[in-house]
């Protein structure tokens, strides 16, 4: 089939008759401002958007199907590729769901490290969001400023996990490895610098007249609509609903840390911008508390059926070698049952619904992605608005197509 | 200098006539419009040849720079290329157009014929054709005409808004 063949466009148009005054523009999948391979078919009446039809699936890799044919551990690397802007957060999400299925408690130190992962991922994701958002509205310099810090964040992630993008840092019942003091020191440098950096970004944008003109009152959504659309994360909070999984149903010991959940009132692009900026500050606050009270002790659970034994013991002892062999080749069995577990990733509520029939791989694994549901509001936000605001709205929703299409 | 001026005149005439022919005969309205713009610019050349600098520049700014842009806009916006019936000319048009053209030609021929006998227009001052010259005349001698123009412009403005508003 011709890849550029456009059947879906025809399908779109069968629903509403042609009008010569309506200009139909295809925006994406190969467009500089659609944040990946999002494709929108826009019907424009002059500069106004009359209709906006998103077409998804350009990054659909059938992760849910793949999961049914992988052991639980084998699926962790796939989560790296969902929200590729904050893979650490998704890593944490999947193992928490599996651990709930197994009814497994992890040591405190492990939970603390996971919090570090989540918040570091949030900082990285928001840095990218801010840069590209500003770039979409023409402020190219902010982009380079945030990317400079994002590079720093990536260096930290690389030192921690050995990879910049495909982190796969978590394990069921623990982490890939413990964190060392040196790295924690570097992390502290980073978070000490961050609040100042956020202030600097703010000084570039928050009071800039053109920025206000482009964002205030644009793409506003009410709290009720946002909830009805299944919006979660910063975009929902900007609409005034302080729903944050970290507060409502704490995991990884989030209840032990002090932080605020910033909310907006208008639900417009400007509020989403402010909420995310404040979230970056709160992330720093959480990270600081974690660093100050990082518990000692083991990181991993002591369960040889689930967690890989230490390499040294594998090489010297028979029993551990067998365990290692079993976990790697066949995985472990989960009890029959089903859980839905969600975490607050940078984009919103990332949920994993796992149905297990007692096998070594999930019978069904459903990924509830925040970007997918947030993006569903896009037509609501842009229809009746101006075409230039489409880009601003996409950027403010911060969708990641890897997570939308899965 | 006279020789050079004649050469310039011949070149300009050729350009103006050629572009005029394109305006009339080209199938694509956009090309016709562009040719008309070119035609207007070459007429500005005539003004320059006649030492009317200011007029020449205004010709370019107003006619080529503004009016033709509007015409181009309309052609491009409304994609006249695809409107059926626009290439076919009506009965009135086929009859009236040659008649009016003929009338214009006769009137101009008469003017040239009469003028040929009389004395050539004598340039009265070194300022001839400059902005200053035009301004002095305009704001003293042609006072009423000048004020009437503003009324005309306002009428055009109102008309434009009313016409467009019907579609807005």
């Amino acid at each position, binding site marked *: 089939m011709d890849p550029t063949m456009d059947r879906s466009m025809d399908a779109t148009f069968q629903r509403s008759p042609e009008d010569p005054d309506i200009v139909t523009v295809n925006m994406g999948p190969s467009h500089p401002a659609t944040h990946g391979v999002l494709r929108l078919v826009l019907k424009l009446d002059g500069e106004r958007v009359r209709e906006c039809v998103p077409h998804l699936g350009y990054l659909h890799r059938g992760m849910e199907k793949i999961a049914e044919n992988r052991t639980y551990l084998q699926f962790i690397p796939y989560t790296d590729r969902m929200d590729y802007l904050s893979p650490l957060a998704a890593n944490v999400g999947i193992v928490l769901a599996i651990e709930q299925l197994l009814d497994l408690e992890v040591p405190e130190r492990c939970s603390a490290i996971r919090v570090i992962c989540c918040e570091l991922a949030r900082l990285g994701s928001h840095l990218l969001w801010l840069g590209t958002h500003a770039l979409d509205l023409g402020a190219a310099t902010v982009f380079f400023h945030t990317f400079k810090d994002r590079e720093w964040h990536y260096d930290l992630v690389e030192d921690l996990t050995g990879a910049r993008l495909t982190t796969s840092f978590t394990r069921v019942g623990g982490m890939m490895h413990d964190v060392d003091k040196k790295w924690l020191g570097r992390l502290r440098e980073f978070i000490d610098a961050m609040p100042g950096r956020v202030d600097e970004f703010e000084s570039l944008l928050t009071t800039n007249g053109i920025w206000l003109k482009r964002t205030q009152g644009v793409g506003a959504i009410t709290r009720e609509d946002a909830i009805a659309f299944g919006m979660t994360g910063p975009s929902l909070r900007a609409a005034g609903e302080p729903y944050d999984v970290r507060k409502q149903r704490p995991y990884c010991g989030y209840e032990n840390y002090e932080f605020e959940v910033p909310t907006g009132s208008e639900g417009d692009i400007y509020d989403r911008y402010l909420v995310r900026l404040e979230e970056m500050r709160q992330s720093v606050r959480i990270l600081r508390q974690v660093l100050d009270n990082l518990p000692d002790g083991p990181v991993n659970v002591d369960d040889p059926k689930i967690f890989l034994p230490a390499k040294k013991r594998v090489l010297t002892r028979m029993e551990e070698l067998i365990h290692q062999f079993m976990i790697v080749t066949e995985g472990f069995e989960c009890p029959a049952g089903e859980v839905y577990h969600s975490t607050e990733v940078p984009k919103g509520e990332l949920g994993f619904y796992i149905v297990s029939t007692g096998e070594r791989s999930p019978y069904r694994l459903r990924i509830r992605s925040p970007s997918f549901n947030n993006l569903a509001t896009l037509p609501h936000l842009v229809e009746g608005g101006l075409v230039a605001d489409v880009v601003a709205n996409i950027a403010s929703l911060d969708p990641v197509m890897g997570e939308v299409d899965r | 200098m006279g020789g050079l001026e004649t050469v310039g005149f011949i070149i300009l005439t050729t350009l103006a006539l050629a572009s005029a022919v394109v305006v009339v005969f080209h199938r694509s309205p956009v090309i016709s419009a562009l040719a008309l713009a070119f035609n207007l610019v070459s007429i500005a050349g005539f003004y320059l040849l006649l030492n009317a600098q200011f007029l020449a520049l205004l010709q370019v700014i107003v006619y080529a720079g503004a009016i033709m842009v*509007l015409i181009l806009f309309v052609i491009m916006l409304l994609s006249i290329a695809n409107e059926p019936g626009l290439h076919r000319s009506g009965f009135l048009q086929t009859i009236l157009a040659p008649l009016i053209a003929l009338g214009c030609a006769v009137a101009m021929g008469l003017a040239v014929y009469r003028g040929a006998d009389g004395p050539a227009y004598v340039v009265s001052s070194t300022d*001839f054709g400059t902005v200053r010259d035009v301004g*002095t005349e305009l704001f003293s001698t042609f006072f009423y005409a000048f004020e009437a123009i503003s009324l005309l412009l306002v009428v055009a403005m109102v008309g434009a808004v009313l016409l467009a508003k019907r579609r807005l």
Partner: protein
Amino acid sequence: MLSFSPISLGFQKLVAESRLTVVLLISWSVVMAAGLMFLTHLLPKLFNRAKVKRIDESPYECGMKPYRRVEKHRFSVHFYLVAMLFILFDIEAAFLFPWAVTFRDFAADKLFVLGEMAVFLGILVVGFAYVWKRGALEWE
């Protein structure tokens, strides 16, 4: 043929010079532009072996085949209104230029000429206010 009465040779010379300079200026710019166009047409043909593919030459529509040809679309009538208003105010500006230049020359009648322009602009401002009020300046 055409005949002009030269008033002063100096003036005539200056005018002729600047007229020819305009011609020279335009010709040279066109020569430069055309030269660049020619070079960029010729050089790749001489040095690049790869052929331009057909897909490279399709109009850009974000990787999709254009849904309808662009000529089938009609664009906002608002552009027309902007162009129309531009013409009218451009003509107004055309009268402002000679006025601005000669204003001081009317030494005694200065106030009269000022009033003249005030009336002219006043009428136009009324028109502008009408246009504004009717929302023709709103970019809907």
